[in-house]
């Protein structure tokens, strides 16, 4: 392509070679390489963007969650009234009931009032705004139950702070909900060493509460656990057996084709539709209890089933046919071939698929909304038929509460959920890598 008069095509046909080192060609090459580099950069940018999204998401949630695992407490000298459980001997059931029923909230308030000597109604209201009254009552109740001799005496106790006070202790600039007086009081607590923020172990042990200081994800974790147990118990055997049937036994005909198409489609049916199914079948037709882990588990099992079947079939497919032939050639029956050779070889793959399916089920919210697992439930569920909620639904409910404290709780709940999920996925990835290389 040195000059315009030189027709390249004719050169071409004459058997003349293209002039690879002409300036035009060199320029062209340079342009082509530039295009190559740009394209590569675009790919890298896309991948980086995906990574950044993840970083942003996880980072943001971790940032939000940082205060959610902690709770501020205030130290107060409390006068335990003498009339608590009057006439009951400590240790008797009556004593416990009486202690439980005692109006501890006012006791806590009196202690505050004593400390600061406030009297006007407004002052009292402000004072009350410093401690979590529900939390204080729980703490006092527990203290007296533990040590009945406190009755009628004065005791120095750590009581959970209210939500705004808690916010103040964690980030003094961000808390706007406190009056100047309240801030002054809190500062005096802090100066006296009567204010501490500590890791909130309760958060992992309790159920929902209207009081942020008492709200925990323990109930939701147990609910998730019970629900997933049902899901696993139902979906794993059925999924594995179905995969075996379709892959190893089913004749190639219309019916198995139909089943196959069907399963592939089920895998893509929106999860909320499974919620509608659970609502209509388990609740309305079979009359199973609302909000129960058993119903949630069954609904999620139906949803997870296709995932397990599909990955199970892939795992079975990956077992080389030569192994089947070898066993058949030795005179093993089909069932023996499957049970002795194919299934053990496919098991890691099937487990991987199952773990991924379980992780999906653990993170699923929408279908559970349909079957009433969005209720205010305080108690930690103890059986498969008791009302319960699950982690993601608890997160959903907290996310919609306006109090700032719940926002941190939401993020903390998400962190817990993510830790579960990431460990499950990591386990799946590990299993896959471990057995794929073989």
């Amino acid at each position: 392509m040195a000059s315009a008069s030189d027709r390249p095509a004719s050169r071409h046909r004459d058997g003349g070679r293209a002039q690879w080192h002409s300036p035009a060609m060199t320029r062209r090459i340079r342009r082509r390489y530039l295009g190559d580099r740009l394209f590569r950069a675009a790919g890298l940018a896309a991948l980086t963007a995906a990574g950044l999204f993840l970083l942003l998401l996880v980072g943001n949630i971790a940032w939000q969650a940082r205060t959610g695992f902690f709770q501020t407490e205030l130290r107060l000298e409390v006068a335990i009234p003498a009339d608590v459980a009057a006439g009951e001997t400590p240790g008797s059931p009556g004593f416990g009931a009486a202690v439980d029923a005692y109006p501890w909230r006012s006791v806590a308030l009196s202690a505050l009032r004593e400390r600061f000597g406030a009297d006007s109604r407004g002052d009292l209201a402000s004072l009350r705004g410093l401690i979590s009254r529900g939390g204080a009552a729980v703490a006092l109740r527990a203290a007296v139950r533990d040590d009945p001799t406190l009755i009628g005496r004065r005791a120095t106790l750590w009581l959970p702070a209210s939500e705004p006070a808690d916010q103040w202790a964690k980030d003094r600039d961000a808390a706007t909900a406190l009056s100047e007086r309240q801030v002054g009081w809190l500062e005096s607590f802090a100066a006296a060493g009567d204010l501490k923020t500590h890791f909130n172990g309760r958060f992992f042990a309790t159920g929902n509460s209207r009081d942020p200081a008492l709200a925990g994800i323990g109930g939701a974790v147990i609910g998730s656990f019970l629900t997933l147990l049902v899901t696993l118990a139902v979906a794993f055997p059925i999924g594995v057996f179905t995969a075996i049937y379709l892959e190893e036994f089913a004749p190639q005909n219309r019916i198995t084709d139909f089943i196959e198409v069907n399963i592939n489609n089920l895998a893509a049916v929106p999860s909320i539709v499974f919620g509608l199914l659970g609502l209509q079948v388990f609740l309305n037709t079979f009359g199973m209890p609302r909000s129960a882990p058993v119903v949630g588990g069954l609904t999620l099992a139906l949803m997870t089933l296709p995932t397990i079947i599909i990955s199970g079939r892939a795992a079975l497919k990956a077992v080389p046919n030569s192994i089947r032939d070898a066993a058949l050639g030795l005179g093993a029956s089909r069932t023996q071939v499957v049970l002795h050779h194919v299934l053990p070889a496919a098991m890691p793959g099937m487990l991987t698929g199952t773990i991924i399916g379980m992780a999906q089920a653990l993170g699923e919210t929408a279908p559970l909304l349909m079957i009433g697992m969005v209720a205010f439930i305080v108690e930690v569920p103890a059986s498969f038929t008791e009302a319960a909620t699950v982690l993601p639904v608890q997160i959903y409910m907290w996310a919609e509460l306006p109090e700032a404290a719940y926002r941190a709780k939401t993020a903390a709940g998400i962190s817990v959920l993510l830790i579960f999920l990431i460990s499950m996925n990591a386990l799946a990835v590990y299993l896959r890598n471990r057995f794929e290389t073989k």
Partner: protein
Amino acid sequence: QAREQIRVVGSSTVSPFASAVAEEFGRTSRFRTPIVEQTGTGGGLKLFCGGVGPTYPDVTNASRPIKASEVALCESNGVTDIIEIRIGSDGIVLANDHRGETLTLSLREIYLALAAFVPVDGRMVANPYTRWSEIRSDLPDTEIEVLGPPPTSGTRDAFNELAMGGGAAHVTEPVSLDLGVPATCRPGNTACQEARAAGTLQWVAPNAADDDFADVRAVRFDSLAAVEHRHPSVFEAIAHYIREDGRYVEAGESDNLIVQKLLSNPAAYGIFGYSFLEQNADELQAARVASEDATFVAPTFENIESGAYPISRSLFFYVKKQHVGSVPGIQQYMLEFLSDRQMGTPENFFLDGELPARGLIPITGAARQTMIERAKNLATLERKS
């Protein structure tokens, strides 16, 4: 499956109070903690009146009194003995993010801003107002965007009755009711559908029964109040019919959700109970409302308690007496709800009571004693006429 827990459904306004009581009740008594679901007053009553038995809820919260029609529904399903407990009152507030502009509104202006049909030049037409400033020039010049509860909600009923109805009653201009074509009709409202199909200019409320309109068409009234006087059901169909053109957004049963959404949009206003304002006092501000005398009243604890704030209503819960004695703890739950530690001591309820701290304006004095008596004696609702 034997049921050991009380199941509570109903009003989202009452729900925070009920769940707080439930939590404390579970903690301090030998009974298990009740389960509380928010379904809205209407939805709750519908579930509650579904029947008697372990599968039906024991208690439903309500942010308005039960209606005669609901009592009838209950009765038809065998729910014959209902205990009504009034727990206090609540103001319905119209609030927005404190970064936005504060509203001062009369009830009439609320009606004009939110009704589906309003009188303009003597005719009922589809609501033409798109900005607050078109209603009154000193109101903010922003688009009308109000998030409020759906018809299942008691807040909506009370708002319709007190604000919309109250406001429409103050519309003094003469109107005739024979103009306008509704955009849509309720399934089954044949007159509406026919009129729409024929394109005839009739005023047919999409929600009203046909007969009500037989004798008001083409009649000229002096004011909407006159309509109320002579044809109360027609008046309701006009006044309680909230606009559906997207300026009033039905934001679901959860009032918390509405609060959330307001925080992210300062130009939007939300309708909900006072307690939610109280809980979010640092981020929300409420509109001051005048009934008719142009003295704008802010929704404060005192104003609602005294009744000076025009949109206040009572809060209740209803108990199925037939379940008392079968599902454990119902009576104790009622008494817990009315106890001093929940409602506050008569002298200083505000300090000692848990519910007032959460924004309930509690029932006091003799009225509260009556309620406690009711709970103790299980006195049921007298048949309303």
